[in-house]
């Protein structure tokens, strides 16, 4: 019974399933994925711009047009005007600060809370309902309370941001920590692994894909949270939310829409960043594990 009959020697490399596939379909698939991933979203972008022009030029009469100025006006006044642009960039900087602080705090608090809940059913039963309540709280109604404690500047903005982005992190992390199969737990039970070892070597790695999915959702929400916070707490550096409120009251449609789009781009950027990070950290074993 020889060892070497069934497996290659140490210098050989296992065949890569993709490399084994015939070359032509692979090229075609790549072209197909370019169409799906780039051209189709661009086509939809074209439709949206077209619809925007249609509403702006055809539906609204000139007196109403400030509500939705046509795209080129938004670009000209809101973005290409030097002073307006630098104002917006400094507002974007402030919003980024609030977003990242809020998201960072949410991740630390959310993951810690979920780890705690995963350790005992009674902790989960006592805390989880309150995480749900926190999510359903009408934050805006609480703004007077927040300003009483934390004033009207950056701190209450960050707190609003945390409240809005906290829940998906808690729920996804908890779900992920509980996702390791029983047979995997048996391996650790068999070798009398302690709670920390089990958490560190089994539950947390198993939870990572779901945690990242939660971070992505929370990332988008944290931008919304920052902007909602800025809308109400206007002292200190103006953020995008502060400007939204100002431009709305001044009926400056062009700058308003430029700010709206910038805020949404920030959300997309944070979302894409976490997608990329997720692929970097768990992509090697997770995606291919599913297929």
């Amino acid at each position, binding site marked *: 019974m020889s060892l070497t009959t*069934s497996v*290659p020697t140490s210098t050989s490399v296992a065949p890569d399933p993709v490399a084994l596939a015939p070359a032509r379909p692979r090229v075609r698939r790549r072209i197909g994925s370019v169409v799906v991933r780039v051209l189709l979203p661009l086509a939809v972008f074209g439709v949206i711009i077209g619809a925007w022009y249609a509403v702006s030029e055809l539906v609204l009469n000139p007196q109403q047009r400030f509500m939705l100025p046509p795209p080129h006006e938004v670009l000209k006044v809101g973005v290409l005007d030097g002073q307006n642009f630098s104002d917006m960039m400094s507002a974007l900087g402030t919003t980024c600060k609030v977003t990242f602080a809020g998201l960072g705090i949410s991740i630390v608090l959310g993951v810690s809370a979920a780890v705690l809940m995963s350790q005992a059913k009674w902790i989960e039963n006592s805390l989880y309902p309150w995480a749900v309540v926190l999510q359903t709280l009408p934050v805006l109604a609480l703004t007077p309370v927040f300003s009483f404690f934390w004033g009207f500047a950056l701190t209450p903005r960050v707190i609003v941001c945390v409240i809005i982005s906290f829940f998906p992190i808690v729920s996804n992390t908890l779900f992920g920590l509980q996702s390791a*199969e029983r047979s*995997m737990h048996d391996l*650790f039970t068999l070798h009398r692994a302690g709670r920390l070892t089990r958490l560190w070597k089994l539950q947390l790695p198993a939870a990572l894909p779901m945690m990242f999915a939660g971070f992505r959702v929370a990332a988008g929400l944290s931008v919304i949270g920052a902007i909602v916070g800025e809308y109400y707490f206007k002292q200190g550096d103006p953020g995008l939310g502060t400007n939204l409120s100002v431009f709305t009251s001044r009926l400056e449609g062009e700058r308003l829409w430029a700010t709206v789009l910038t805020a949404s781009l920030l959300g997309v950027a944070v979302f894409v960043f976490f997608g990329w990070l997720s692929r970097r950290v768990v992509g090697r*074993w*997770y995606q*291919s*594990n599913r297929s």
Partner: protein
Amino acid sequence: MTVLTGAPALSFEGVGKRFKDGTLALTDTTLAASPGEFVSVVGPSGCGKSTLLRIASGLDRATTGAVEVASAQVGYVFQDATLLPWRNVAANVGLFAELDHLDQRERRVADAIALVGLGGFEKHLPHELSGGMRMRTSLARSLVLDPDVFLFDEPFGALDEITRERLNDELLRMFAVRGFTALFVTHSVAEAVFLSTRVVVMSGRPGRVIADVPVPFAYPRSPELRYTPEYAARCGDVSRYLRNAS
């Protein structure tokens, strides 16, 4: 193979197991394996074979009776390879050694990987391996412990016939090299007879031992053993008991 005397490496004495939901899985099961014996357990589905292993390993507790395992390290190979998908082959093989804080981990891992014939695949992730290779990794993970007692819970049940036979051959080679005591649960009579010094047949639920068939063929056993009339006769014996069992 000579009959070994002295204390058994593994023994069940009147073991019964009733689950929380009231199901009686095992009743009055008495079974022992001497050091260096390879004992297979066959029986109808749901007869408590796996429960027997879970009790031997300490994952489950017997409701009645006594279980003794005379070994500091017990190897346990599950039905599924149960590899951690984020760890490569070497890191999966090293898991138990890591959990038990064994010394000389790298050498142990390298030895085990060589013994199961996975040299060159250390850096591969589980999803990049075939079913057979995953099972080899799972075997290596326990071999690292150099256990005196090895529990196998239908490890090759999900593999195709050719892979299964090849892994049977290799398992016997490991058995010869490492000299452990094995308790091997399987559905396959052919596999049980090929591997074992004894085949134990269990009844349907609640499970208990109804026959104990010695397999007298000498080790090392060549793959050709499978085509001899003596081997077929033994398989026939076990199958007859099994048919009466269900």
